[in-house]
């Protein structure tokens, strides 16, 4: 397994969240190089590196940065997405609590490239104890003159403000996040027809995931080619993949794209817990299609291959399930999550998540019929492709994959 330390390099260093320690290990060294380049040159490098967004969608970062206007009288903003609410995902938390200065360094470079002076880090409300570590790092950076009126003596003002969420999965969706930052309910916005930036109080705004931004300093230091030494042609670089569920050593381990999934689970996860056999893996956070053990055996961890096996890389948070797992219970658990988290704007989503939860409860109570299984699939079609955001289509994918691949377990629970 190739060792990768693009964002996890300082994770194992004692007290690396402190400025002094982080600096001993090279923090903020790339700022000088970055400010010697023009904003457009930086964006070009990011584009050439092939860096893809690490919040779940995998959108090319460079192309998104290019949508930001370079001369506009309105102010530009950066919103860093640390909502991290996708079940099975717990990587951004590692970055903000173990190497917050890497994130701050990435934010400064990103803001310089998109001509923004104000960045917000939107962080889920539950992460308060990690938020405090991040806030202390930001405070240290202000005191040291890394943030504030002049970034390290450069004629560049830079302010970073943490914005705390309050318990709403949907606020991770980029437009819902901005609604929430505008002080409103976290309701996703209708998508524009053409490609354009996001908007914060009507101002052009870039939304990127924490890990995406934390990858920037490496790319500035080692160049686009340096980043492309990892990963595949179309999925360059690395990801902080995560593992939870029935493995011996769950956790976060950075790996390059293209790593075989089975090897990853065995090498870092120590295999399936208690010598059991693998039954299934949800590969990229809860909202991706579940894979059977056979599919896992031939899956590799990159965007393209995960599509080939009929799922998606998502956030790279793998939920591993052993042979004893009841797949009907597992789906029920996820449907409760979606039912609770639907923002309620679209009828198919609000009602569909509720009904599918109710129907599956009936099946689990022993009062279901095989018609109920088909009804779940029908609800999946109703939720697919008819809503403001992709939350409901993701629920459809989850329902279809569970029933499609483990139908016998569902049949075994219904009477007639």
């Amino acid at each position: 397994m190739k060792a990768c330390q693009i964002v996890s390099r300082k994770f194992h260093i004692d007290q690396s969240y402190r400025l002094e320690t982080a600096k001993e290990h090279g923090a903020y060294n790339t700022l000088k190089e970055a400010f010697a380049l023009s904003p457009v040159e930086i964006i070009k490098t990011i584009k050439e590196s092939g860096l893809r967004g690490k919040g779940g969608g995998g959108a090319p970062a460079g192309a998104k940065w290019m949508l930001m206007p370079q001369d506009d009288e309105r102010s530009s903003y950066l919103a860093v997405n640390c909502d991290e609410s996708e079940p099975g995902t717990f990587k951004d938390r590692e970055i903000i609590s173990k190497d917050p200065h890497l994130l701050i360094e990435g934010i400064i470079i990103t803001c310089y490239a998109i001509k923004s002076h104000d960045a917000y880090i939107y962080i889920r409300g539950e992460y308060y104890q990690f938020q405090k570590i991040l806030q202390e790092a930001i405070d240290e950076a202000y005191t040291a003159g890394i943030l504030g009126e002049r970034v390290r003596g450069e004629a560049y003002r830079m302010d970073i403000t943490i914005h705390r969420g309050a318990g709403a999965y949907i606020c991770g969706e980029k437009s819902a996040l901005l609604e929430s930052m505008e002080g409103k309910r976290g309701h996703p916005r209708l998508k524009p027809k053409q490609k354009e930036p996001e908007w914060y109080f009507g101002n052009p705004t870039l939304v990127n995931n924490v890990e995406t931004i934390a990858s920037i300093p490496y790319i500035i230091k080692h160049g686009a080619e340096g980043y492309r030494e990892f990963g595949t042609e179309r999925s360059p670089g690395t990801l902080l993949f995560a593992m939870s569920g029935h493995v011996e050593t769950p956790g976060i381990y950075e790996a390059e794209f293209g790593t075989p999934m089975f090897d990853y689970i065995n090498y870092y996860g120590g295999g399936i817990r208690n010598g059991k056999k693998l039954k299934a893996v949800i590969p990229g956070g809860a909202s991706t299609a579940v894979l059977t053990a056979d599919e896992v055996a031939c899956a590799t961890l990159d965007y393209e291959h995960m599509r080939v096996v009929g799922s998606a890389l998502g956030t790279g948070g793998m939920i591993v399930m052993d042979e004893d797992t009841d797949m009907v219970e597992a789906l029920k658990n996820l449907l409760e999550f979606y039912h609770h988290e639907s923002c309620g704007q679209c009828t198919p989503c609000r009602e569909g998540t509720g009904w599918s939860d109710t129907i599956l409860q009936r099946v689990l109570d022993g009062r279901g019929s095989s018609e109920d299984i088909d009804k779940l699939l029908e609800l999946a079609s109703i939720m697919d492709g008819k809503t403001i955001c992709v939350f409901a289509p993701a629920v459809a994918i989850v329902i279809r994959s569970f029933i499609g691949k483990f139908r016998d377990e569902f049949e075994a629970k219904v009477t007639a």
Partner: protein
Amino acid sequence: MSFEFTKENLEKIEALKSRYPSPKALSLPCLWMAQYQERYISLEAIETIGDLIDLPPMEIYRVATFYTMFNLEPVGKYHIQLCKTLSCALCGKAEMLNHLKNRLGLSPGESSSDGAFTLTQVECLGSCGTAPVMQINDQYYENLTPEKIDIILDSLEEGS
């Protein structure tokens, strides 16, 4: 009943205004401050916030009711929130819930009569690698076992 922000919080709110393009952005920060001040968010607090950031109180109320972490009713001094989502469920959440229920004599959604504890179940806490997990107020407790829960609750009971 009336509600007033402490002087310290009012200063914080003023300072935050300069960080945002519009004071409307401050609804979440203000709701948090109100909740820390009183352990829940009262209708009076909602009116005060509306005045401060120039939004109708109904708008603040709509926001407060959207986010699950805002409590519109008082909760116990220790708010125990057990994660119920998939990774925790795979790793023994049901046993933890039973243990908490027996030990506290509470079902999810209930508070103890002395106001010390409230028990709730919540969705994924972003701590799936150390499941099962619970949060008590702002603190995470990970890799739970029944014994660990006892030690944690013992120390809280001693402290209160």
